[in-house]
């Protein structure tokens, strides 16, 4: 039952605009499921695994009761979103050039982002 739900969610994510692919990785860093090609998958998996470990270690070192909820790596061309789920984590690679930030009307001023976690809305 859960598996079906997960599959469905993955399908939805994949169908979202701008999403290039999804990789699901187990706790050792070995990709379990992917929608990208093999070489890219292995590439991403290897590189990001260490980053996540480091980030998680950092967060938990400062406060052991805390834990990493997600990690975004934004670059010029695209964005890598990483969500660790306990020990396994999944990743979406997403291009954000399509959200049309350039088309954003000037009337709407941008405010600085704050990331709130927990029960509050995440921005």
């Amino acid at each position, binding site marked *: 039952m*859960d*598996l079906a739900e997960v599959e469905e*969610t993955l399908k*939805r994510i994949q169908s979202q605009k701008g999403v290039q692919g999804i990789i699901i990785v187990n706790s050792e860093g070995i990709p379990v499921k992917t929608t990208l090609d093999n070489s890219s998958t292995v590439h991403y998996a290897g590189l990001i695994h260490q980053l996540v470990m480091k980030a998680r270690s950092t967060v938990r070192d400062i406060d052991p009761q805390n834990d990493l909820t997600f990690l975004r790596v934004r670059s010029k061309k695209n964005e890598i979103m990483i969500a660790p789920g306990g020990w396994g984590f999944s990743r979406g690679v997403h291009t954000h050039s399509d959200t049309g930030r350039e088309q954003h009307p000037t009337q*709407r001023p941008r405010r600085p982002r704050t990331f709130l976690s927990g029960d509050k809305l995440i921005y």
Partner: protein
Amino acid sequence: MGHLAESTGNYLDLAPPARLVVLVTCIQRRTGAATQQVLLDDEERVDTVDRWDESHHGKGLIKPPDQLELTEAELKEEFTRILTANNPHAPANIVLYNSKECCYKPTVVEQMIVHFVVEGSLLHQDSDEARRQKAKGGLPEETATFDTGAGPDEAKPETLDTPADDEGGAGEEDRPDSVASKTNQKKEAKVTNQFDYSERACQNLNNPHRQIGCQPEPPPRSNFSSLANQWVIYDAYMEELQKQERNKEKQKAAPSKKDPDNTKRAVVSTDSHGHDISKVRKAVKIIERMVNQNTFDEIAQDFKYYEDDSDEFRAQEGTLLPLWKFQYDQAKGLSVTALCWNKKYQDLFAVGMGSYDFNKQEHGLLVFYSLKNTAFPEYSYPTKSGILCIDIHEQHSYLVAVGFYDGCVAVYNLNKEGMDAVHKSTAKTGKHTDPVWQVRWQKDDLDNNHNFYSVSSDGRVASWTLVKNELVFTDVIKLSLNGAMSEGTEGSQQPIIACGTAFDFHKEIDYLFLVGTGEGKIHKCSKTYSSHFLETYVAHSMAVDAVKWNHFHPKVFISCSSDWTIKIWDHTINTPIFTFDLNAAVGDVSWSPYSSTVFSAVTIDGTVHVFDLNINKYEAICQPAVMAKKKGKLTRVEFNPIHPIIIVGDDRGYVTSLKLSPNLRKKPKAKKGQELATGPEVEVAKMDKLLSLLQQPENSTA
């Protein structure tokens, strides 16, 4: 002759005849006795020769034939002979030139003649060489003295003296040196006789070396490396703690109660295999939210930060900014019949879908959306019959009470897996016979059971209690046109049962509630009095669609109806305080949670009206058309408890969220110098002021 005698000093000369000179030499000492006689007697010389054959003595002298014949006188002549140690052959007349006297002088001539040299191996024991040899030999002094063969007594004290001397000499020096020298001396004294000891070596066969090793099998090894971070330690402690707790629980053998207010809504199983899926699920969910956030990034930004600055220029009007639009594939054809925000998780809201159309009764859907993921619902429960009302429990926000079109009520538990309701009322358990229009959770009763109320078109207000996993109902009140009738009255006339279409419980006074009927009346009832109403208001000409108490003011409530009007009441007064005519049937009305004078209403022409009585008592301050007139009707509206947004449901199954502009959220301005008071009291005061204003003109007109 003298010369001859001198020259032949040491030798015996036998050859010359007549007078022979016989000289005594050392060689001839052997024949000492014989030769002495020879000195005295020349003639006897011959005898001496003969005397060598002393064995022949006694005979007469034997004269050689050629002997000189001397007279007796001549024979008695004495000749003197001199014995000297001069070398007869050494020249006596060696002269050397003496430069001093300028003449030749005779020198002394060496008279020594070496006849025989033999090199001996004897050493004097006191000589250096002897000492050296002694040292080498290392024999003790005593033996050394014996060995040399010298007079032992003489030698001994000598040798003893020498070490003593040595010691005495070295006495001033350091002791060890003297000791060493003593030992040395002793060593030197001992001279080994090379035959005294023998060093003999003898070697056996050396056994050939063999290496024998034994190695057991090494224990299996594995590499272990680990980090010991702060959090690793913390995790270990937590695990340990959990184990202990589990053990305690097992010991107590008490059923463990699941903590309802867990921060994570997903059920986390302790089995290891269940972990993987649930964790992946969670991770995937987060990813979905992140992706959605990216996709709807601008909207999220607007939601949080956008404040319409143009409101400053608009004197009193405000605007509504459309944010997200929620839609669900499976909800096509259904209309939104109920909206409810979750009190605890203020980004979660429930949408009940069904149909108001009597003819088109299909299935229903209970859907939960979160603002964090606006593309897909968090939970969805399909139902057999259309849903008409929802209520989420205030404390236990996973409990949802649902009222259906077919008269059933059900309770869903979001924490539990499965698509079915946890409890459902059936015909046996007293479900309503007509659609249930409103459900409301109440506070837990005395037995700590959850309970909720429902009102339905069959005229009953029922209370349902969850008693040990069962739904037990009790009728609270029966609505009738003539007034409430108790069950047991003897009645010739059948009481005409009114249908309840809406109700609301007072925020503070628990037992007080209002019921709106399909006839347009509103009854004020009490839980305790089941027989009659406290008050009845003739409110509308058509069915009352919604009735709501004010969040702040204890006396004010609002009602709306399909007769195009909204009315605001003071429950102590029989007539409405405010009446608004909206030119279209009003689907729903709702008070705002932040102000006592702001409320919003939706009409079937697709317009949302927001009123602020403080600003404008007669008109809405904002009337945006959210939907085009022909496209759909708006059916429900709800304010978010904390965020300045409202959600509006329509009959297409869409839920639109709108942000309220600042004008719509105005708080009373503080006078300069005064503190801005916040809190419900202020709101109450605001309302009171309004009411008093209204009442004054009323009084004046009356």
